[in-house]
């Protein structure tokens, strides 16, 4: 699985870079029990995208904020906004893993490198956009 994800991501950095208008993109494998590769995009180093895969799909994740950063009094409003936004955001969905809010895109295991690159570029743009739009709900 580890090897197959690495093979799939071969050349991903340059495709994402080109898609994003010539930005430098770097890939770093993250050690652990499941394959994870960190994708860092120039100028957006604080919002890296993580690519991981299971037996059934490839998942591109961007961690947005922690539960502790959400303004308590506006929490419900934020959750409803995220649910409402979900169908509108192209290629990406909001979710939560543990106490971390994420924006993610899921692809079939047989997705091509170019498809993964497109998802990552969309995810990065959407994450930055979402962070800006929803920062009013955060401390």
């Amino acid at each position, binding site marked *: 699985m580890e090897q197959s994800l690495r093979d799939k991501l071969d050349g991903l950095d340059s495709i994402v870079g080109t898609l994003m208008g010539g930005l430098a993109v770097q890939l770093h494998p993250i050690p652990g029990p499941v394959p*994870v590769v960190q994708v860092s995009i120039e100028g957006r180093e604080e919002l890296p995208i993580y690519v991981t895969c299971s037996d059934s799909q490839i998942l591109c*994740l961007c961690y947005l904020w922690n539960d502790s950063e959400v303004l308590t009094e506006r929490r419900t409003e934020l959750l409803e906004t995220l649910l409402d936004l979900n169908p509108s955001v192209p290629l990406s969905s909001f979710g939560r893993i543990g106490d971390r809010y994420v924006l993610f895109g899921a692809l079939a295991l047989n997705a091509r490198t170019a498809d993964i690159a497109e998802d990552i570029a969309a995810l990065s743009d959407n994450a930055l956009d979402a962070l*800006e739009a929803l920062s009013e709900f955060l401390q």
Partner: protein
Amino acid sequence: MSVIKKVVTLLRGSAREIAENVVDANATRIYEQEIIDAKQSILEARSSLTDVMAREMQSARAVTRLDGEIAHYEGLALEALNKSEEALAEEVAGKVAALEQDLEEQRQAQQSFASQVSQLKELIKAAEAKIREHERQIAIAKTTESVYKATQSISDNIGHSGSRLASARESLERIKQRHEHLADRLQASEQLDRELGEKALASKLAAAGIGQDADRQRQRQVMERIRARQAKPTEGQ
């Protein structure tokens, strides 16, 4: 228990628990074994199905053939009667009765094969549905586990690298500042280009005797002429 229900229950616990518990190794093994068994029974059912379908076709052909033979011999019996060959007609009737017996047997066989075919098709459908359902349940469990394990690895990695996970607001601020800085630099470089370009153009125009700088040049020429006239009378004296 549906696997989504199980995930919902586990979600009330800690993230680490989810990563460790959602894939119940024993349950997954059972599901995986059931998938293998179901696939095997589909293979067997398919092979029986082709056999039973072939037999059904044979019976159907026999029924058609016997129908034809019965009609043929009944015609012959009628002809014998018309020729007052009672004994011959009797004999042919005996043949027809035997053929009808065969026909009845073939019809029953055909019905029995047809019902076996539909049973086997049902069995295959049920086995395929079971495989799909088990594969979906395993996929949900493994995906949940994988996502939580990935998050754990990422958190550990950030922890080890010593870098603090910035708050979302801080991250956004930093990215925006960087973008503004970049935009300012772009603007400054454009301005510089423009200024340099303007200066170069102005000096070209002046050299060609056009524009404001050109006026100043003409003024200088007039002054030179006047100074020259001023110098002349002195020369004459």
